[in-house]
């Protein structure tokens, strides 16, 4: 403030002298830390440790599910006679336990078809979860397409995207045959070339550089 300086000068002419800085109590020559400083730092450090002991476990508790992987689950959905290579059969099975109806999901299952270069002893299970935002798609027999009701995503017979906003083919479930029973296992995602990768959430691209932009999560199962 220039004006306040002016006032001071006009009021009294004697220049201000600075007092020498007082030495802290108990100071001795060559001391690098005062007692006060030591106690301030020590008490703050103790407080920090006590705070961290409470906060860090709480954060870990909230974050743990990001790093935890659940138990692998397999569920029988039918016998080998139930499925043919030409069309899909809709099955409903439980993907997540303990939450009732909400934990169930729909899969479209068929036998492997030589027309698409698949092994007839294999079974293909395509998830009904749209790769756009996760709405449930349905298989339309007449068009041999999967169609999503929400935003108009369209997939062909083997689940590859042919129209609409989805960013990758439909997810699949691992399958295995035990004593003529088809069992469905963990979910996995595929690239546009149908290469299996760890499952991604809807809306995430797969393959190429996208594997780094949408990194695989530790909470998912490795692909078959």
């Amino acid at each position, binding site marked *: 403030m220039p*004006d306040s300086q002016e*006032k001071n000068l006009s009021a009294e002419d004697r220049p201000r002298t600075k007092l020498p800085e007082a030495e802290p109590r108990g100071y001795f020559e060559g001391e690098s830390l005062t007692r006060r400083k030591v106690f301030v730092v020590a008490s703050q450090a103790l407080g920090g440790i006590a705070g961290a002991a409470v906060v860090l476990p709480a954060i870990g508790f909230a974050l743990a*599910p990001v790093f935890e992987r659940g138990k692998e689950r397999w569920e029988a959905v039918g016998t080998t006679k139930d499925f043919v290579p030409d069309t899909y059969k809709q099955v409903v099975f439980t993907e997540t336990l303990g939450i*009732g109806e909400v934990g169930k999901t729909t899969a479209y299952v068929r036998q492997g078809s030589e027309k698409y270069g698949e092994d007839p002893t294999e079974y293909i299970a395509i998830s009904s979860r749209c790769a756009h935002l996760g709405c449930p798609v349905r298989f339309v027999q007449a068009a041999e397409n999967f169609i999503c009701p929400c935003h108009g995503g369209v997939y062909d017979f083997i689940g590859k995207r042919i129209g609409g906003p989805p960013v990758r083919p439909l997810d699949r479930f691992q399958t295995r045959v035990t004593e003529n029973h088809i069992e469905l296992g963990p979910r996995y995602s595929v690239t546009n070339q149908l290469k299996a990768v760890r499952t991604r959430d809807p809306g*995430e691209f797969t393959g190429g550089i996208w594997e780094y932009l*949408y990194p695989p*999560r530790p909470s998912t199962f490795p692909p078959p």
Partner: protein
Amino acid sequence: MKSPFPSRTKKADQAGNGAAPDENGAVVEEPKPSRKEKLSGHKDLAVHHGGEAGKDVAGWVDSRTNATGIFTAMMSRHVPKGTNWFYTLGSATMFIFAMQAITGVILSMYYTPSATQAYASITHLTNDVFLGEFVRGLHKWGASLMIILIFLHMARTFFFGAYKYPRELNWVIGVVLLILTMVMGLTGYLLPFDQRSFWATIVANNITASGPVVGPYLADFLRAGPDFSATTLSRFYALHMLVVPGLIGGLIGAHLFLVVKLGTTAPPWVRAARPKGAQRSEAVVAGVAVADSDEVSVSSNGVVANGSVEAVAEEADQAKSKTEAPEAAAGPEVTEAESAPEEPEAPEEPEAPADDEETTS
């Protein structure tokens, strides 16, 4: 160079001049006790100190907390001329927040945050509980109303230029509050656990997941796992009930504190009489003591608050004439009432806000 903080300015004014004669020899009157001093009632401290505490419980508490002073300072503070109904949108938002908090607590008495029982508990609450439908309706419609009011409040702040210096931080806090309110909307939407809320949450989660690099992990954190699970609902419930309301409450406190500390702005169509900064620098150039120009600004503040607009114009003129002819100038208290403006060049604007620094630029 005038400080934008009214309270600080006032304090400086009180400290700056006593009854000492200024350079021109005119004795400046002892400043009247400021409004703040009058309201805080510090003089009563001694009265309520001792044995008569039982007589007057409110006074006893007040003398120890200054609750009345704080309350009056908040509730009867000066507002600029031109303050209108648009300025009530913030209070309206806060009222809705209080309503959401109260109805939310009542709803939580009947709600079960479990994936298998949530829907049934909501059905029971809506259909069987006395007035349950009404309370749930208040909570549901209040959520939308709160978002609407926030946007109107935000628009008022934007179009009135009230986000500018020194109130930028309050704008930032307000934006965080808007985002937190939307988080409340997102987390609360899942709780009824019908088809609509379930799928809306799935979609919201997947939108979160589609953010590059951190998105997938963020979605895992929100869902508490790779898929929607039993923990997801209770996680959303905890966020909706405890975490976010706490944050909102604290930030509303900070928001209000800044409103009280910085004051509100006048509407843009109300302009200042003249830039105070310019007036001040003139005084400095002419060599008039700082105490004088401060005195002028204090009394002009008081006058404007009392609503006599013409007096301000006169005072501004008075200050100008004083700077030009220091010998002839008398104390501002003397001239305030009688002397008529004689400076023709002073561009007076009849509408003058009380303590509005925005309009000086």
